[in-house]
């Protein structure tokens, strides 16, 4: 079975791409899928740290691209889950060390052995971004409910639509439902109004995310974390399951409006 290559990007930095990549990877692997993650942020690696694998690095993606290591040598196996691997980014090089066709080649080499290849994107829209979009079958766009994050996400949607990789699917991260109710935070509807792309996940603000990052154990492993649960739902939707969105509050009206908005979308977005 040949893998689906999913790139997780955002435009704006700091909105939760790396956290999303790590957690979705863990959730998929916990469900029995064979997963490999690539850290596309050459020069500023952090997927390894978020996954707690930072002390296992020997070789990295640039070593593979430049022929100093084979793909298997650079892959770090996460011992906590059956089939979860990471290929870390180089820390002392920069984005120019890798080209779009390098990334396409690496992903093609990985496809036969895995179900999912998840690529963490750097911030921005320059070469690093194009490197990670080049091999993608699906692009997930992470944004926060704030004006500048949404504007950057909109730019990204425009760029990937132009490259015929669109429209992408949205992960709305760091939602604080109380602030939305007070009118101090953009609602999911507000964001979807502007971006107009299918929604694949809403992640509530959750302190457990920071705690998990401190420990190097992504929150998707933790039953008690609501954000972890939301990431597990994204994994299920990626696999084609229809999963209703978690109630972030008790107000039925919110959910019904959301369901109505999502109803016409094709099944694959998870509904």
């Amino acid at each position, binding site marked *: 079975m040949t893998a689906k290559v999913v790139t997780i990007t955002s435009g704006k930095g700091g909105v939760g791409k790396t956290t999303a990549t790590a957690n979705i990877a863990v959730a998929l692997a916990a469900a029995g899928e064979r997963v490999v993650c690539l850290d596309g942020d050459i020069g500023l690696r952090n997927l390894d740290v978020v996954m707690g694998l930072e002390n296992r690095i020997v070789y990295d993606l640039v070593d593979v691209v430049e022929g100093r290591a084979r793909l298997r040598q650079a892959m770090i196996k996460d011992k*906590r889950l059956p089939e979860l691997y990471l290929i870390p980014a180089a820390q002392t090089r920069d984005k120019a060390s890798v080209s779009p066709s390098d990334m396409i080649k690496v992903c093609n080499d990985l496809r036969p052995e895995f179900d999912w290849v998840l690529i963490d994107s750097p911030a921005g829209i320059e070469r690093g971004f194009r490197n990670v979009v080049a091999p993608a079958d699906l692009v997930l766009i992470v944004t926060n409910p704030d004006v500048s994050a949404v504007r950057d996400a909109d730019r990204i949607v425009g760029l990937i639509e132009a490259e015929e990789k669109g429209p992408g699917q949205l992960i709305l991260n760091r939602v604080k439902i109380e602030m939305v109710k007070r009118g101090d935070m953009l609602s999911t509807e507000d964001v979807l109004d502007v971006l107009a792309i299918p929604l694949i996940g809403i992640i509530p603000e959750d302190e457990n995310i920071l705690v998990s990052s401190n420990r190097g154990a992504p929150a998707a492993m933790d039953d008690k974390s609501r954000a972890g649960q939301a990431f597990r739902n994204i994994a299920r939707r990626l696999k084609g399951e229809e999963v209703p969105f978690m109630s972030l509050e008790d107000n039925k009206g919110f959910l019904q409006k959301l369901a109505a908005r999502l109803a016409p979308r094709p099944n694959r977005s998870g509904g």
Partner: protein
Amino acid sequence: MSNFFERLLGRGPREASAHTAKERLQLVLIHDRTDLPPAVMDILKDEIIEAISKHVDIDRAGVEINLTQTRRENRLVANIPLLDAPGGGRKRRR
């Protein structure tokens, strides 16, 4: 699965995660600054043990190789227990 953390790290649930974060961070930064990937340390340790063993008997199990940092100065510190040569006298070179 909620015991995952505890089993994984061998720590009680009370261990403040910020403490863990700080420890991990110190180690990660030394590796970043010196461009010495963490897992390469194991390879390095084996090679140091082999090199030193050629000249003197050492207690391999007791060997410690660590990265330390004082302000921004990084050091590789090797702590190698030596064994007494059997029958005294200089060890012959192999």
